[in-house]
């Protein structure tokens, strides 16, 4: 099986700026386990978020549409070009498809969950202590050299993301991000459609 070309950035593609039609779309996030649901809460197990705490600055997801649920099983391998494939696409370069299985292979043991963009983008948590911090979740298109459909969730306060803050404000933002993901994750595959190509083509 070859790595799907439809996942790769194309020279006639543009980065996707925020577009209202994205609100009807869904994100998919992979996990290293299929044991996702805490039976006591029917929500995502907190351990799956806590392990990602170092990645909350730029919480990786994929936009469902051209990217199919089955594509979540493509995993990069430890190879000379692995950093290149993980790097952000420069917006112009044509990408040589990765080799299978040397550079990408299928990892069918992965699990996954979904996020509804309308419940994520611009969601605000208002702290009522004397910091009055109000982290805002934002969806950003962050295409990589191996995946044009890579999107990130980031949390901002006063225009700065959580890693640029220190101490109490950063702590409030991180706790809110963790709680947010546990609350918003769902597990039944949603009905999804491809984004209008006019939104990302030049």
């Amino acid at each position, binding site marked *: 099986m070859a790595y799907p070309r439809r996942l790769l950035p194309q020279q006639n593609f543009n980065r996707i700026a925020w577009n209202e039609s994205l609100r009807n779309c869904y994100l998919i996030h992979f996990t290293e386990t299929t044991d996702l649901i805490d039976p006591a*809460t029917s929500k995502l197990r907190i351990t799956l978020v*806590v392990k990602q705490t170092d990645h909350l600055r730029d919480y990786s997801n994929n936009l469902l549409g051209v990217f199919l649920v089955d594509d979540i099983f493509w995993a990069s391998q430890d190879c000379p070009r692995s950093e290149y494939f993980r790097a952000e696409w420069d917006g112009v370069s044509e990408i040589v498809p990765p080799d299978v299985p040397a550079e990408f292979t299928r990892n069918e043991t992965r699990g996954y969950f979904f996020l509804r963009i309308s419940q994520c983008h611009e969601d605000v*948590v208002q702290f009522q*202590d004397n910091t009055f911090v109000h982290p805002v979740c934002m969806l950003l298109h962050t295409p990589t050299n191996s995946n044009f459909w890579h999107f990130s969730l980031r949390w901002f306060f006063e225009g700065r993301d959580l890693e640029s803050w220190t101490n*109490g404000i950063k702590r409030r933002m991180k*706790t*809110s991000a*963790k709680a947010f993901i546990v*609350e918003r994750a769902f597990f039944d595959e949603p009905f999804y459609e491809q984004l209008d190509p006019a939104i990302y083509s030049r």
Partner: protein
Amino acid sequence: MSTLELIRNYKTQYTPMEADSLVLPFYMKQSPHSGSLERNPICIIMHSEESPEVGILASTMSQYFLEKKNRRYIELYTEFLTKWEQQQNYFSVFPKAFVFEKIKEVIDSFLTLNPSYVTFELTSDCSVFFQSLVNGYNIYFELYFTTDLKDGVEAITNIYKDGRTIFAYGGSIDTVFSQIDSKVCQTSYEVESTQSFYGISETAFASTEF
């Protein structure tokens, strides 16, 4: 009447009891029935033409909640110690005794909310992230160990209900739990005790005659 006295007085072939069983007496007018749950706690309904003896009832309920809280405290603290063995490297900057004291304080505070569920994980943010269910509220609570505050810790909570954030707050452990309590616990004991008294007696009994 003590729990042991109740057990001694009301143990029958239909209501087998062990010495450490929890006992919840029920006083109902004109009801000749009694019964027991399949597992602890065991409940007894006593026929009485008189008004319920509220004093006995209240002290037994109080004892029941205390025993339940103590048992859950031991379970959660044991779970913490297990996780600590695996992930204590996250907290290497802080004295073990200090971390343990703070975690004990948080577990005790959580149990005072009478939660239906508590879980937690140690994190590489030098924190312990808790999730708890209280009265249908989903409480996320994170205790950060930090050198930038003189207390050495900061507690932060987000509370969700029906998928929406209803409250977010940060501060000392005491302050944050006081805020949580004011948001979610106005009715927690009332609901719990009502369920214990009426819910169980209506649905879970295998009714038997004395």
